[in-house]
């Protein structure tokens, strides 16, 4: 069924709504959604117009549903869309503007709380202004080069938002790199003729049994262990952002944080908004910025919490500066165990970014022999490099 090109020449259902008004309003509304981070293209706008032909525009609920079905494509976008819709298409803001079910009642708890921190000033500006959208792009995109090289610990508040966006864009690239199969295989299950012929000897040369062969598909799984103790403070907020983005782009990622204890945060990060995830995390993780006992945490990972998670297909990434208050022998022993089970073990150290750094602290010295890669993690560029390393691993 070919999609019809929307014919807006047809008269509307009611005389109150003029065709031009609706179209221009839709255009501005889409621009607004783009401002707020939704990926709305002209194609989608055309789809909306096509959809509107099939419904009664005056029916608010149907209008809402038609717009939503075309313009939203992710669960996270729903509350943003709802807020924008309410502010734009309704004169007086009402708490429950549309019927039950449209806004997902009975859905995830805390969904409505995500609408709160929305910046309504950009909403108003978008509605008032007539200028081209490009002018209203937030500053900070220009010196991109500088940004990728800048150490996380030196970022000031206004750069943080930009950095977060960049990190979020980085994660899908890494996810793609990791999910690529070992061998591109378009034919799937193959016939293994050699074995089939061999088998046929049992039956006097008649090929009765067909032996098949499947090309091995080797997908990497990721386990992330992130140090969130006091010494890592400056870097944690960005690394968590990175981990959050990665968690939601890729299947088969398990995430843990540790300081004096190890906590699994995979579920907490999954799919909620960043704000909610952070709230969830602060609830889950008892000591966010305490001291570190890497050895004990790795031991609890190896023996209990992470049991069964690490095998020959898993890449384990430990993000830590290595400052450790625990016993070094314990750390070394647990690193050895982990290394023997995992496909590869990568140690990311934010301190490696500093040119004068030397791995002198005993934690790092104990862990180094068991790490396959020892890489920096202090700025965007280092995360990009991590992506490339992982890509290389998945091809190996």
């Amino acid at each position, binding site marked *: *069924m*070919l*999609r019809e090109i929307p014919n807006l020449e047809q008269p509307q259902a009611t005389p109150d709504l003029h065709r031009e008004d609706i179209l221009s309003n839709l255009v501005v509304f889409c621009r607004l959604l783009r401002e707020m981070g939704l*990926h709305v*293209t002209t*194609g*989608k706008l055309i*789809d909306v117009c*096509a*959809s509107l032909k*099939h*419904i009664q525009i005056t029916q608010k*609920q*149907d209008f809402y*549903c*038609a717009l*939503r*079905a*075309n313009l*939203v*494509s*992710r*669960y996270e976008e*729903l509350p943003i869309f709802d807020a924008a819709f309410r502010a734009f298409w309704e004169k007086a803001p009402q708490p429950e503007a549309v*019927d*039950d*079910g*449209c806004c*997902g*009642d*009975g*859905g*995830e*708890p805390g969904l409505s709380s995500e609408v709160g921190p929305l910046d309504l000033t950009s909403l108003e500006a978008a509605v008032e202004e007539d200028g081209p959208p490009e002018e209203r792009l937030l500053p900070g995109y220009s010196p991109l080069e500088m940004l990728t090289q800048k150490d996380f610990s030196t970022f000031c508040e206004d750069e943080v938002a930009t950095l977060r966006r960049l990190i979020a864009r980085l994660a*899908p690239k890494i996810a*793609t790199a990791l*999910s690529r*199969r070992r061998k*591109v*295989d*378009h*034919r*799937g*299950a193959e*016939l293994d003729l050699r074995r089939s012929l061999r088998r046929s000897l049992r039956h006097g040369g*008649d*090929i009765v049994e*067909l032996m098949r062969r499947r090309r091995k*598909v080797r*997908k990497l799984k990721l386990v992330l262990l992130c140090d969130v103790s006091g010494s890592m403070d400056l870097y944690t907020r960005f690394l968590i952002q990175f981990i959050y983005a990665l968690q*939601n*782009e*890729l*299947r088969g990622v398990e995430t843990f944080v540790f300081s004096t204890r190890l906590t699994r945060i995979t*579920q907490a990060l999954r*799919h909620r908004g960043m704000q909610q995830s952070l709230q969830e995390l602060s609830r889950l993780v008892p000591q966010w910025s305490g001291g570190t006992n890497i050895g004990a945490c790795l031991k609890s990972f190896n023996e209990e919490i992470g049991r069964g998670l690490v095998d020959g297909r898993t890449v384990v990434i430990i993000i830590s500066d290595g400052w450790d208050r625990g016993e070094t022998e314990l750390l070394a022993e647990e690193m050895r165990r982990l290394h023997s089970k995992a496909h590869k073990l990568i140690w990311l150290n934010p301190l490696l970014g500093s040119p004068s750094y030397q791995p002198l602290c005993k934690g790092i010295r104990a862990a180094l022999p068991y790490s396959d890669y020892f890489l920096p993690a202090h700025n965007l560029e280092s995360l990009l490099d991590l992506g490339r390393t992982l890509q290389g691993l998945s091809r190996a």
Partner: protein
Amino acid sequence: MLDSIEEILESMRREKYITDRAMAVTIYLAYHLGKPLLLEGEAGVGKTEVGKVLARVMGTNLIRLQCYEGLDASHALYEWNYAKQILTIRLEEGGGRPREEVGRSLFSEEYIIKRPLLEAISSDSLVPPVLLIDEVDRSDEEFEAFLLEVLSDFQITIPEIGTLTAKQAPFVVVTSNRTRELHDALKRRCLYLWIPYPSFERELEIVLTKVPGIKETLAAQLCRFMQEVRRMDFYKRPGIAETLDWASALVLLGREELGRETVEETLGCVFKYYEDMRRFGGEQIASLLERVS
């Protein structure tokens, strides 16, 4: 058939699928615009069921493609029936037919095993079939790209036979449990609908419709219980499917109300993971029961 939004709501209700106007509008638009319908939501909220119900409502076949990790084109599209081909070769060995002719006949429609996508495209039923692509998030990006190609033109080229084009495009319903983000291109192709957990009233309606013979008070207790459980933090939150299982189990056991013992005995209907069951201990059950009774 799918002529108005109200009709969709009514006919789905007749097939015992209780839903809201938002879904009906989205289904209506998807059908009339010729776009696939993408249903996302947690496990057990009734996404797959939509495909099945729509097939019944439309009076047409349901062709189901269950996605899984490692699914590729051949499993979704077609495969040559090697066994039959080899047997034919053996049979023809003594006969007089020229080899080229035998060779050509081996690669005809007779020797193709049609998998769901080809089935959907080559369907010649009066009403286009419903093509349900279930749990597409379990497949990988490669397969998504391939799917996108197929969904764009509903055309498949089999090198030995030629190009097959669908006489009429099937109605495509794609579901995802959101274990990973789907590729943008696929999402843009579809009309999107998120199916949340139902409200108490809706869930009660569903239970009363699909589990005849259950006492309304028990059903209400059950639904309140489930609403509470979903607010708590579990590895795998139970969906409507679990509520219905539980309701049926209780009816079978002849229980008339939720007591602590009953809950402990039938907890397996609600939780399917050991850690969840372990976490939901005796006192938790008791306090929850107090809240819902």
